[in-house]
């Protein structure tokens, strides 16, 4: 009996866990169907979510860019969870690093940057911002020259852990210095325009304040969004 008791207990737990999970899933099985649109009162932002079965597609038009995303959603009585698909298709800024001369003995890191416009025939980008970062804080700012180039030496690599390169309107690049500490490197950076891009978030959870035939009122943090059903 003494041995059987713990076994029965663990069997009970094993039995209860799936029931609990099923309950959670059942409570999330409500469905939204159709197109819902929220507009910023000034007409400078509009967000549309199209629900179809358990999937959604979302568009956001802003006065400078457009965001989009898709995924599946879970909904219970007062919560709506949008879970975005992982998107690998986004044409992102990138870089290619080439070690020029082995400089292992030196305490200096020599960097030759060449910044190109990946959205315009790889033309050089002048006036790109090059930020030498110390754990999220910019300590030195530089700009690329008219040929898209910037050459510099980092004497103390403990002070600079990353180089962030950007032009507003293009996706910024983050290059970890640890990859080439105390070496001489040539880095070709290709920046891509981000006017149409994907939502950054993996998921968004809303509270549902109202769900009627014509309206879906959601709350995201402090923000109340009145979506009107348009289709």
């Amino acid at each position: 009996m003494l041995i059987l008791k713990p076994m029965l207990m663990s069997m009970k737990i094993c039995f209860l866990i799936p029931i609990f999970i099923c309950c959670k899933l059942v409570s999330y099985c409500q469905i939204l169907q159709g197109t819902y649109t929220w507009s910023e009162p000034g007409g400078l932002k509009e967000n549309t979510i199209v629900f179809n079965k358990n999937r959604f597609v979302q568009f956001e038009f802003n006065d400078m860019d457009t965001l989009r995303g898709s995924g599946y959603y879970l909904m219970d009585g007062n919560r709506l969870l949008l879970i975005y698909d992982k998107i690998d298709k986004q044409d992102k800024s990138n870089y290619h690093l080439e070690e020029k001369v082995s400089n292992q003995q030196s305490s200096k890191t020599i960097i030759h940057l060449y910044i190109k416009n990946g959205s315009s025939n790889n033309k050089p980008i002048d006036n790109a911002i090059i930020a030498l970062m110390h754990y999220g804080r910019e300590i030195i700012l530089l700009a690329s020259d008219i040929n898209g180039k910037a050459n510099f030496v980092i004497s103390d690599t403990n002070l600079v852990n990353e180089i962030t390169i950007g032009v507003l309107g293009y996706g910024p690049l983050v290059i970890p210095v640890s990859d080439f500490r105390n070496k001489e490197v040539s880095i070709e950076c290709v920046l891509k325009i981000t006017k149409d891009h994907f939502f950054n978030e993996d998921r968004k959870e809303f509270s549902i304040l109202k769900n009627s035939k014509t309206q879906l009122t959601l709350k995201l943090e402090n923000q109340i969004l009145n979506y009107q059903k348009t289709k």
Partner: protein
Amino acid sequence: VEPSDGDLGGGFGSGGSTECNNRNSRDACDLIDFSDLWEDERIIDQNLRPCMQPVISDIKNLGQGSVGRIIQRFAGSTPGYNWELTDGRLAGGINAHTSQNYNSSTGTVTTTFDSYKFTNSTDLSVARTILHESIHAYLVAYFRLDPLSASQTFAQLLQDYFQLQDVNAAHHNEMTRNFVNEIAIALQEYGINKGYNLDFEFYQDMAWAGLTTTSAFQALSESVKNRINNTIQVELVGVDTNGNPQAQRGSRIGC
């Protein structure tokens, strides 16, 4: 119009006096020279529909609140870029769009207005839209032409851009820090010139348009947020956020 930078007084941030670099001491600034020239020569608005022309013309003629002077107060010098305003159809419900990209071959930032979405809008609503977009255009040009000065003037904007990777959000956050009041002052001057007798609170409320998803706006009380949302929407479409028709303060521009 020549795309070369600085032919109307230099590029960004380099030509102003100390007083003019301090936007709080606006009376000390001699602002009557180059900003007028910039507005006349570098705001390209021929491609706007006729219904929009009187509003942009009145904005150009503002004294302290003109686009050029707002910018001059920040940059300390006359803007070294062209701002092209054009009309076109825009996707979704948005009525204005400023390109994130500075055209370096023409020295131009372009803003498109979808004037067909201003059918029920007042002059005050269109004016505040133009002022809002003018700040976007200025920030786009400033960061392309003189990124190091721009990064000093708007350090938090740069941080936001690196962290959020969203220029639109970074610009809007910056507007809540530095431009809401400037837009309100400019809009008030516009309103006074048009003969409107409205509280400054109305103009401040209008200046939040386009910024209502920022954390700064969300930090306001619910009653203030509701008042602002209603004020903005009534001037734009003639109905409040509950869909009820309301009297507008400005005059419809007839687009």
